[in-house]
């Protein structure tokens, strides 16, 4: 009796010592989780809550009044017009860049990948400034443009190009690692079996990259709609003409129309939430696929 209980005790102490050496004690885990959650609550949940609270504080009628105001509607229309131009172009760019980088070997590939990341590192206000200096009335091409009665700065073309610049990497950044990881065997098989390039892309590559592509497009879309610093420099903030949704929010806020500012913000916040929900869905999908593949 005594011997076996000593043996059990020894096993217990060994197990305990092993646990102590390989994981944190329960109290420490609880403290760490609590600190992390307080930090995230303060920085992520509170700002989100304050936007939604501010938007709906005075009831759904006031919210609807704010988002259906003519200036708000014109900002929403302009924002949609811009993403309809920019997002397809950047998507096409992302797919083309990822195809050439993932399926072929060439010199300077890593430089090209770094270059694609570059717009992401440049301050949005510098992006705006670059185009003001090129196309502004006092800029390099300004006199020529005004002689030909063309306007880029303080007009829609300027807004389109700075947003295209700012959101250029998003689709490419999603697709390049994904397609590199998938390799090119499947495409080669399809081509060897007689399918042409387009067919191979459409029936072999596209289904494989579908989810990454969807997330890249939706992220590009959210960032394009929300772009602020670059647009602030080139738009001139002409009400009802060159105000995008974020600029309209700024105007409303500076005029102390806080409820209206939060109401328009709530639309973009909803879009941001949809974006991160899709990202999570894509990741969970991928995890499940890998688990099934491993089993």
């Amino acid at each position, binding site marked *: 009796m005594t011997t076996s209980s000593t043996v059990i005790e020894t096993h217990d102490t060994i197990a305990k010592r092993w646990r102590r050496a390989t994981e944190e004690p329960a109290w420490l885990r609880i403290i760490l989780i609590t600190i992390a959650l307080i*930090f995230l609550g303060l920085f992520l949940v509170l700002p989100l809550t304050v936007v939604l609270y501010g938007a709906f504080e005075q009831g759904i009628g006031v919210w609807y009044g704010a988002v259906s105001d003519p200036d708000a509607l014109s900002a929403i229309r302009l924002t949609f017009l811009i993403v309809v131009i920019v997002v397809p172009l950047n998507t096409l760019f992302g797919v083309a860049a990822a195809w050439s980088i993932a399926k*072929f070997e060439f010199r300077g590939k890593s430089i090209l990948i770094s270059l694609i990341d570059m717009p992401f590192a440049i301050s949005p206000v510098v992006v705006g400034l670059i185009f003001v200096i090129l196309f502004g009335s006092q800029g390099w091409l300004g006199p020529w443009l005004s002689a030909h009665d063309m306007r880029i700065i303080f007009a829609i073309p300027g807004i389109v190009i700075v947003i295209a610049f700012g959101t250029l990497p998003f689709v490419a950044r999603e697709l390049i690692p994904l397609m590199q990881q998938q390799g090119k065997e499947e495409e080669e098989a399809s081509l060897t079996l007689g399918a042409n390039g387009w067919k191979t892309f459409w029936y072999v590559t596209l289904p494989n990259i579908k989810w990454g592509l969807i997330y890249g497009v939706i992220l590009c879309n959210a960032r394009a709609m929300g772009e602020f610093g670059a647009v602030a420099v080139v738009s001139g903030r002409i009400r009802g003409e060159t105000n995008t949704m974020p600029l309209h929010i700024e105007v409303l806020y500076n005029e102390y129309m806080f409820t209206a500012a939060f109401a328009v913000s709530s639309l973009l916040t909803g879009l941001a939430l949809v974006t991160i929900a899709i990202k999570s869905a894509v990741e969970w999908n991928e995890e499940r696929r890998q688990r099934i593949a491993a089993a």
Partner: protein
Amino acid sequence: MSITPAKRRVIPGFGLTMGFTLLYMGLVFLIPVGAFLLYTTTMSWDTFWSAVTQRQVVASYKLSFGGSLIAATINLVFGALVAWVLVRYRFPGKRLVDALVDLPFALPTAVAGIALVTLYASTGWVGQYLDVFGIRIAYTQLGVVIALTYIGLPFVVRTVQPVLEDLEAELEEASASLGADRLTTIRRVIFPALFPALLTGYALAFARALGEYGSVVFISGNLPFRTEITPLLIVAKAEQYDYHGAAAIGTVMLVAAFLMLLVINGLQWWASRRHG
């Protein structure tokens, strides 16, 4: 094995896709950036130097660089903690918390800006309690740091998380079975493995904070010499048609961004070498 197949590209479309990639990048940003740098070189050195060393501008560098450093450091500490908690522990709502980490990346900066100033103003949900202790955040340099912390939050978490997930449990078990206690294992085994990712995340958060505009301008109050960040001065000068001044400061910011990109690429190269 004796027959080597002729090296031939099976996959088509290299010319088309590479051509479009380069054309699009060239038109949208390489040529404009090049032209912008060329414009700066048309300035005389004295014009350039006096524009970038104005007292007000120098004060803004201090705030932008200092504030970004502090914010990135806060994100380094808490980002590492959040990544650790998300990878290693189980708790209710973990998936939701994990998804929310990307919010600062997806939420428009102007929306973040008005949300933060509303929270931290002396009448706001958080500001009113801090006001009791005489701590003011809105319209002070603290507010700038808060906004820059917010904007950089996802970077450390998202660079450290995958490395931590791939870290093999055997390593830690080996360390433990060799007699190391938990703290020693964390210090000598886990931390060195995470170090490149931590540095990369830190550099990314810093680079993002340096150029940030939208989330800062609302909470900072933009007081000259005190709460003006450098991007704000660029906007102000561009609005006053002071293109030389704006371009000179913009060039400083652009060079800083290029340097950060080089540092980040170097760090990622180092991390991948360490990893592979």
